[in-house]
C-alpha cells in the first residue's frame, strides 16, 4: 500500500480517488497518524471500532433471525428439519438481501465521498447490516436496493454524511418501503418464505381492530403461530429478520451498554416509557372498545420491532438527542409513542419505527430545551 500511496496524495495522478485509497488502506492497516499536540496520547477507540462493536452486538440477533427464517419456512410448508438446514435455508434468503444492501449502500457512500473529496466513513458498516435485519425475508431485492438508496442518499448523504443526518438511515429505508410498497411490509401480514398465497396475521395485528376483547386471550387463541409470551421473547415467530428474538437483542444490548457505545439512558427510558404508557392504556381499557388498550406492557415489549428499535435504532448517536437529559426524554417519548401508535391507529400496528423517526425529528428540539435549561441555571447563579 505504501508503494502506491504517492499516486493518491495531492499532486499524484490518481488524487481524485484518494477516498477509495484511504478506505482500503485504513481498512487493511491501522492508521499511523500521530498526535501533533496535547493530548499526546489517545484512547484506542475510533469510529471504526465503534461501528464494529455495534455489528458484533447485532450478530446474536442476526444468527437467530437467519435460523428462524428457515424454521418459519419449514413450518409453513409443514415439514420438520434440523437447525442446520434451517440455517442454510435462512441464509439462502438473507445473503442476497445483505449483499444488495451493502453493495448499493457502499456504492453511494463511495460515490459521495469521491465527489466530495472526503474520507469514506464507517457509518455504513452498521446501516448496511441494519437494513436487511429490519426487512421481511420475502422482500423483493430490487426494493431493498431502492430503499437502501433512499435511506443512504436522502436519509444521510444530502445532510452531509455520517454525523450530520437527522434521521436514522436504516429506518428511513424501512419507512420508504413501508409507504411505497405496503404490500411487502405493511406490518399486519406476516412474511414467510412459503407456498404461494401463504399469509397470516402478525402478533400485533391480532388484537388490532378487534372490538372489546382481551388482547392476551386473543393471542393465545391463534392457531397458526405460537404467540405465547415466552415464545415471542425467544423469537420463534415470523417477522422481520433480526427483530424476532428479544433474547438475542437483549444480549446485543448488554454488549452495547457494557462498552458504552449505546446509550443505556435511551434504552432504559424507552422501556420505562413503554411500560408507563401501556399500564395507563390498560387502566383506561374498560372505558373503551379498543382491544389494543388491554395489551399488557410486557407483551408490548416482546411484540413487534420495539425492542430492536430502541436498542439499535433509537440509540444511533447522531439522530438521537445528544444531551443526557435529552436522551431520557427522547427514549421515554419513543416508548410512549410506540404504544400510542399501536393502540390508537390500527392502520399501523407497528408503531416503533414511526415513533423513532418522529422522535429523530424532534430530538434537536429536545436538546434545545435542555441547553436552554442549562443556560438558565447558570444565569440564575449569576443573579445571586
Amino acid at each position, binding site marked *: 500500500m505504501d508503494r502506491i500511496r504517492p499516486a493518491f496524495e495531492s499532486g499524484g495522478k490518481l488524487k481524485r480517488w484518494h477516498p477509495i485509497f*484511504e478506505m482500503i488502506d*485504513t*481498512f*487493511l*492497516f*491501522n*492508521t*499511523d*497518524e*500521530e*498526535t501533533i*499536540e*496535547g*493530548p*499526546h*496520547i*489517545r*484512547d*484506542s*477507540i*475510533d*469510529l*471504526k*471500532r*465503534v461501528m*464494529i*462493536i455495534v455489528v*458484533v452486538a447485532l450478530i446474536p440477533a442476526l444468527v437467530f433471525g437467519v435460523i428462524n427464517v428457515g424454521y418459519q419456512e419449514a413450518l409453513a410448508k409443514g415439514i420438520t428439519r434440523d437447525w442446520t438446514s434451517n440455517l442454510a435455508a435462512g441464509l439462502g434468503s438473507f445473503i442476497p438481501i445483505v449483499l444488495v444492501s451493502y453493495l448499493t449502500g457502499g456504492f453511494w457512500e463511495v460515490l459521495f465521498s469521491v465527489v466530495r473529496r472526503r*474520507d469514506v*466513513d*464507517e*457509518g455504513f458498516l452498521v446501516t448496511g447490516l441494519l437494513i436487511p435485519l429490519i426487512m421481511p425475508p420475502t422482500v423483493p431485492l430490487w426494493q431493498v436496493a431502492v430503499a437502501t438508496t433512499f435511506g443512504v442518499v436522502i436519509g444521510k448523504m444530502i445532510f*452531509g*454524511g*455520517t*454525523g*450530520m443526518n437527522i434521521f436514522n438511515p436504516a429506518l428511513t429505508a424501512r419507512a420508504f418501503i413501508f409507504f411505497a410498497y405496503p404490500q411487502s411490509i405493511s406490518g399486519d401480514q406476516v412474511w414467510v418464505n412459503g407456498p404461494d398465497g401463504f399469509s397470516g396475521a402478525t402478533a400485533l395485528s391480532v388484537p388490532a381492530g378487534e372490538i372489546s376483547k382481551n388482547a392476551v386471550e386473543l393471542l393465545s387463541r391463534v392457531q397458526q403461530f405460537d404467540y405465547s409470551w415466552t415464545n415471542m421473547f425467544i423469537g420463534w415467530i415470523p417477522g422481520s429478520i433480526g427483530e424476532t428474538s428479544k433474547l438475542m437483542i437483549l444480549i446485543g444490548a448488554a454488549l452495547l451498554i*457494557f*462498552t*458504552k*457505545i449505546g*446509550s443505556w439512558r435511551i434504552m432504559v427510558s424507552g422501556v420505562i416509557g413503554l411500560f408507563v404508557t401501556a399500564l395507563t392504556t390498560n387502566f383506561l381499557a374498560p372505558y373503551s372498545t379498543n382491544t389494543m388498550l388491554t395489551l399488557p406492557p410486557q407483551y408490548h415489549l416482546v411484540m413487534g420491532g420495539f425492542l430492536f428499535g430502541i436498542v439499535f435504532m433509537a440509540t444511533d*448517536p*447522531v439522530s438521537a438527542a*445528544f*444531551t*443526557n437529559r435529552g436522551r431520557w426524554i427522547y427514549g421515554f417519548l419513543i416508548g410512549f409513542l410506540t404504544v400510542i401508535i399501536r393502540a390508537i391507529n390500527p392502520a399501523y400496528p407497528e408503531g416503533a419505527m414511526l415513533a423513532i423517526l418522529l422522535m429523530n425529528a424532534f430530538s434537536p428540539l429536545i*436538546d434545545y430545551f*435542555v*441547553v436552554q435549561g*442549562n*443556560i438558565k*441555571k*447558570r*444565569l440564575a*447563579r*449569576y443573579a445571586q
Partner: protein
Amino acid sequence: MTDIRIRKGHNIKISGAPKPEIITGERPAKVALVPVEFRYVKPKLLVKEGDVVQLGAPLFFDKRNPQVRWASPGGGTVSKIQFGPRRVIEKVVVALDREEETFTVPVYDQDSLSSLDRGRIIETLLKASLWPLIRQRPFNKIANPDDKPKAIFVSGLNTAPLTVDLDLALEGQERSFQAGLTVLNQLTDGAVHLTIPSKSRQPALTGAENVVLHRISGPHPAGNVGIQIHHIDPINPGDVVWTVTAQQVVILGKLFLTGRFDPTIIVSVGGPSVKNPIHVRTRMGVALETLLSDQLKEGDHRILSGDVLTGRKAGIDGYLGFYDTTVSAIPVNKQRPFLGWLRLGSKKTIYTLTRAYAAFGHERFDFTTKKNGSARALVPINAWEEVLPMDILPNPLYRSILARDVEEMEKLGILECDEEDFALCTFACPSKINLGRAIRQGLDLMEKEI
C-alpha cells in the same frame, strides 16, 4: 472542611508512573525560560546574549503590562536567545555560573506576614519578577496585579497521569508553604481555597492555616484547579479568580521568608519510555537533558514538558516549562497492525475491549503518540460527558465555538473552562476531535472581544 467527590473522569492506565521517592538531580549546566508558553503575553527582552544575570533578575517583560517581568531561574550568562518564525522569542537560555549571584528583596518574619499590606506584597512580587507565578481564571493567563480576585485557589493534589505526588513533594516544606498561603490570603478579600487529597497524610496540607480546606477524591481531572473552582466557587461573568500551583506557593513563601528566589522544585520523570521513573529534586527551567541522561529506553521518543495530556513537545534539548513539574516520555511507534480494527482487545495491541477506561484489572499500558484512528465527523456517543465532571454541555459548547458565536459560548459557560480540563475528552473521543484546542480557540475569541 468540605468533602468533594468527583465521579466522572478517568485515570489513564499508562505505564511508567514515578516511584514515590525523591532523588536529588545533578546540577544543570543550563536553565531557560520559554516565553512562547505564556498566553496573551507580548514578551520584550531585557537582556541580550552574553549578558551576566543574577538568579531572580528579570529576563523579559510583557509589553501589554510592563510591570510584569520574568525572573531568571538561574545566575550566570545569557548564552542563547532563540527566535522562531516572525521573531517570536522561543527560548532565553542561561548558562549557570558555578557560584550563582542572587537578586534580593526585603525579608519578613513569619509572624508579620499575616499583617502584611496587599500593596506591599504585590510590590515585592513585581520587584522580584515573580508575579507570573500567579495566574487567573478565566483564560488561564497571568494575573493582572490591578485586579482584585474574588478567591484564590491552590490545588494540593495532582491527578493527571505521571504527575508529582504532592504529599511527597511538600515533605519538610511546611513552613514555606504556610508562609506562601498566608501571603496569598492577604491578596484577596475572599478566601484562599486549598484542596487536598482525601487521604492526605502531609501535615503541610492537612494542617494548613488561613485557608478554606477542601478534601477532594475521584479520578482525573479532580486535581485540576479549574474543576475544583467549578465545584467550590464557580466563576460568574466579571469574576476573576487567581490560582497558584502548590509547589510555587512554596517558592512564594521562601521569597518572603528569605528575600531570595529559590527555584528548587520536585519534578516527576515518567512515561513508558523512561527506564527508572522517579521524582527528582531540581529547579525551574531545567534543561531536560539533565533529567533524562541515561533515563531513556532504546528507540524514538517524544519528550514532553508537562503531563501526557497537556504537556508541550520539548525534545531532549528542550527545557522545563515555567509551571510544569512533570517530564514525560512516550514512544513514537510507526507500526500499522494489519486489520487492527478487528481486534476488540488484547494485552499487546489495545488497551481495553473498547476504551481504556473500561479496563479490567490494574495493568498499565505503553501508550504511544499514535492517534489510534482518523478524524471523523462528530458522533456523540457520550464519550466527552463521561470524563467531564462539570455542569457544562460540551457538545453545544463545541458547536457554538465552531460557529464562532461568542454570545452563545459565554452563555454555555466557556469562561469556567480551560483547555486542560477538556484534555480527557479529546483522549476519549472516537472521532478524534481535539476538544481542548477548540475550547482554547473559543477562549481566544472571547479574550479578543473583552
